[in-house]
């Protein structure tokens, strides 16, 4: 492939230091060509000429290629980042395509994560908001400058629209593609002006997803789809308990399966390598492995919960305190108490975890739905004895993640790497290896949303005012023991254990939030879409409705009373209540059905979401969620349709956890293995979801996760309104709700 990428390094330094825009070196085109979805081993379709910075290229065929430093896992990031670039570039949206950027923290770090590249915490748009627009604006300025010189007209008179540069007075006109070569010779501007938001043509409008075409014709490339010459597929026998190891194994039968090439022991178990997935699976099933359980974790969920309930009787580490909560309770006229239990939850992305690795003399190449570029790069470098820059990562589409691919310790990536290391030099040609977790491997692998127990108390004084709030949480830390501990754990408090609880927005004068962090539970835990808020929003918002009932107050009115100092919370709450017809009577259900409406509001990832749920509870206690009305304030809605899509999807994701989601352990063994015993929401259970967006000029904040937290408490509050019964554990038990 011919590559006439510019060699003038100065353009790669443009804006350096002036605007937080970090630009690296010329991206070797061979790597770039391999980097994007659909590009495993293929060349680029468009010739590259103009590559003004690390984030975009313009081909002579007029194609604008945006390099996404973030993973596309469904949340719409490729489209969002491209929108920002194309807006300032004034590109024709139809000509814009997106590729995953390689792992290179120097150029592609998450600006909110310091020196690390990765995707998470609903930060993709927020951290890139200026960076991507500046990348587009700089390229536009260079195109304009090239045209001004060619036409000998003042740059200020040049107009750019839909990838066409023109000078109306002289009737000169050229496409981006025609100007690309000349623009490549232009100096990179030190400063660029960004558009006035009133001139936006893409931001805040409908810009169709860039990945819709390839995701509807089978062309989109996921890790599972990578096929490399000579590649072997590995399926691994994992121990039945966390912490168990291989004592011995017999591979004779496995090696007898047609297609099986090799069987190797790795720290994670025993890997069977075969020429295809089915042979690898049959080989794995034919293995006889004896496990050493002496260091394995052997408790069940019930015993873990019993321990947590005992711990909750004693004071924990204080995460937040205001006023004098204990004194307020001592003087209280009325005290309301409740406790809540939350199970382990699996992410259960539709694409089970997998990873492809090829080791060569110069380094290693990785194909992965890569969410933790820098962490995985360093972990692999460490294992193989390479420099991080010798680890090339091709970021493919991820078939969902919900946090799972943002592994804090590179778990499944290292598993693939250990297999590659174990066969290194043993098989001629040193083939690439695709680690495939079958659904059962994925579901039993841990890295769950941690099991939590919460205990809450509210103090109401003689005047009927809510004067005290005590909230105690018990659950494993995600961050302690991880590479993020130093950065994010303060005084032993894992911030993500108490997020949404320690920053309760309500004006309650006396408040105490404390935390127990058990360290002797051997179940690996991880962030699960909305992280701490996946349980704290439930306990705080469901409890507040119990408090409102005790105070004889309307749930919306009480919240608004307590949110005077939080206008963005109040704004979404009012909007959701209004659109849902809060206060108007609900249409009654059929005979024996009980109907109710419930509300919840929660801030996560700097976005504010309120939801009103309408539910019908049947005689047998089964719950149907009929409608969810959501109001969202996420700052500037870069792509309003995607904001709606993320909230719609967030509702369905959260509803799975309300109705079914539960990973349980018995004697240390995970009891669920597939969608039969870990059911997910199906289309017939999906409520009607309406999403209303609060107009805002604030910088964009997250939207991938914030739709999730209010769902469960809004439903619990609707069930409380319908039945008088308060949910105190998830998933809901229909037996507790029978008429």
């Amino acid at each position: 492939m011919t590559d006439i990428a510019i060699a003038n390094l100065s353009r790669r330094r443009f804006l350096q230091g002036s605007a937080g825009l970090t630009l690296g070196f010329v991206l070797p085109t061979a790597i770039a060509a391999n980097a994007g979805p659909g590009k495993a081993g293929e060349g680029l379709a468009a010739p590259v000429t103009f590559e003004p910075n690390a984030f975009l290229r313009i081909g002579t065929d007029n194609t604008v290629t945006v390099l996404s430093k973030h993973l596309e896992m469904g949340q719409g990031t490729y489209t969002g980042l491209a929108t920002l670039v194309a807006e300032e570039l004034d590109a024709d949206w139809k000509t814009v395509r997106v590729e995953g950027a390689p792992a290179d923290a120097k150029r592609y770090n998450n600006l909110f994560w310091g020196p690390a590249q990765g995707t998470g915490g609903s930060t993709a748009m927020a951290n890139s908001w200026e960076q991507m627009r500046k990348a587009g604006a700089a390229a536009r300025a260079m195109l304009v400058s090239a045209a001004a010189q060619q036409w000998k007209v003042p740059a200020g008179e040049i107009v750019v629209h839909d990838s066409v540069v023109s000078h109306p007075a002289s009737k000169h006109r050229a496409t981006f593609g025609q100007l690309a070569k000349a623009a490549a010779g232009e100096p990179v501007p030190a400063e660029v002006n960004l558009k006035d938001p009133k001139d936006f043509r893409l931001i805040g409008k409908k810009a169709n997803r860039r990945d819709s075409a390839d995701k509807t014709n089978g062309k989109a490339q996921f890790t599972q789809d990578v096929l490399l010459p000579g590649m072997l597929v590995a399926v691994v026998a994992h121990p039945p308990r966390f912490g168990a190891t291989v004592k011995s194994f017999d591979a004779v039968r496995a090696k007898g399966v047609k297609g099986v090439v090799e069987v190797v022991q790795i720290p994670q178990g025993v890997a069977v390598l075969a020429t295809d997935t089915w042979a690898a699976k049959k080989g794995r099933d034919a293995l006889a492995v004896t496990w050493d359980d002496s260091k394995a974790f052997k408790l069940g969920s019930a015993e873990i919960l019993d321990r947590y309930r005992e711990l909750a009787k004693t004071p924990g580490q204080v995460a937040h305190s205001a006023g004098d909560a204990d004194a307020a309770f001592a003087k209280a006229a009325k005290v309301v108490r409740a406790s809540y239990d939350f199970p382990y939850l699996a992410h259960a992305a539709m694409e089970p975890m997998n990873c492809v690795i090829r080791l060569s003399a110069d380094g290693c190449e990785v194909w992965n739905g890569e969410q933790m570029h820098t962490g995985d790069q360093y972990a692999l470098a460490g294992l193989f004895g390479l420099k991080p820059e010798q680890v090339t990562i091709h970021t493919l589409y991820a078939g969902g993640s919900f946090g799972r691919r943002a592994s804090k310790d590179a778990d499944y990536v290292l598993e693939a790497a250990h297999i590659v290391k174990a066969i290194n030099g043993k098989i001629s040609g040193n083939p690439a290896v695709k680690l495939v977790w079958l659904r059962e491997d994925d579901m039993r692998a841990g890295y769950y949303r941690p099991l939590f127990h919460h205990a809450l108390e509210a103090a109401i004084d003689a005047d009927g005012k809510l004067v005290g709030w005590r909230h105690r949480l018990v659950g494993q830390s995600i961050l302690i023991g991880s590479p993020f501990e130093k950065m994010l754990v303060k005084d032993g408090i894992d911030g993500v254990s108490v997020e949404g609880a320690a920053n309760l927005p309500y004006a309650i004068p006396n408040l105490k939030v404390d935390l127990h962090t058990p360290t002797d539970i051997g179940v690996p835990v991880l962030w699960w879409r909305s992280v701490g808020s996946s349980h704290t929003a439930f306990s705080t918002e469901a409890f507040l409705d119990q408090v409102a009932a005790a105070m004889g107050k309307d749930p919306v009115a009480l919240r608004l009373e307590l949110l005077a100092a939080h206008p963005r919370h109040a704004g979404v709450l009012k909007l959701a209540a209004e659109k849902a017809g809060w206060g108007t009577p609900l249409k009654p259900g059929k005979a024996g059905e009980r109907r109710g409406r419930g509300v919840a509001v929660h801030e996560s990832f700097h976005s504010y979401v309120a939801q009103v749920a309408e539910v019908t509870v049947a005689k047998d206690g089964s719950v149907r969620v009929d409608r969810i009305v959501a109001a969202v304030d996420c700052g500037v809605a870069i792509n309003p349709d995607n904001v709606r899509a993320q909230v719609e999807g967030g509702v369905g994701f959260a509803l799975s956890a309300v109705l079914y989601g539960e990973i349980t352990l018995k004697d240390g063994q995970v009891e669920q293995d597939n969608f039969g015993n870990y059911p997910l929401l199906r289309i017939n259970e999906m409520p009607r979801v309406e999403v209303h967006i609060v107009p805002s000029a604030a910088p964009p904040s997250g939207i991938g996760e914030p739709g999730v937290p209010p769902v469960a408490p809004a439903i619990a509050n609707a069930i409380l309104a319908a039945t008088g019964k308060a949910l105190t554990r998830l998933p809901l038990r229909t037996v507790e709700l029978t008429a």
Partner: protein
Amino acid sequence: MLPSSLWDRFAPPAVRILLPNRIPIPMESPMIPLNINGKPYQADVAPDTPLLWVLRDTLHLTGTKYGCGQALCGACTVHVDGVPTRACSVPASSVAGRKVTTIEAVDQQRIGKAVQEAWRKLDVVQCGYCQSGQIMSAVALLATNRRPTDADIDSAMAGNLCRCATYQRIRAAIHEAAKTLA
């Protein structure tokens, strides 16, 4: 909820007929003649190899996805003689001589094209991993029911899981496709 009850609730009747345990698997079958997207193939695979893995690993048609291996999620849905079928639970040998259509060729049919276009117009996809299967199920529905109601859609599509929960848009896109086909 048990897998068997789920299966009874959600598997289209035609898929149940193709369940591996109801199909005698030939013990010896050196070459399996297959007809995939109108092209003939001779697959040299073990006769118990599910159609899914022949499509993906042997024929490199990777648009059909692996999600569960137990016909619980529908990510592997293809058409066998026009009937939506979970390729993970059908031995390749059982579809010998029958016409198999995958996502890669769905745009060659009028209904398939309409469904694809509706999906794109409404931006149904998020992660996209389940969408090949969703589209194959939707096309099969519209082939037999040109004006499906929400209830028809729910019953035809309930075997296809979407963890991103794009269900509301799937419903809307099927209605949209029905409109353009009318």
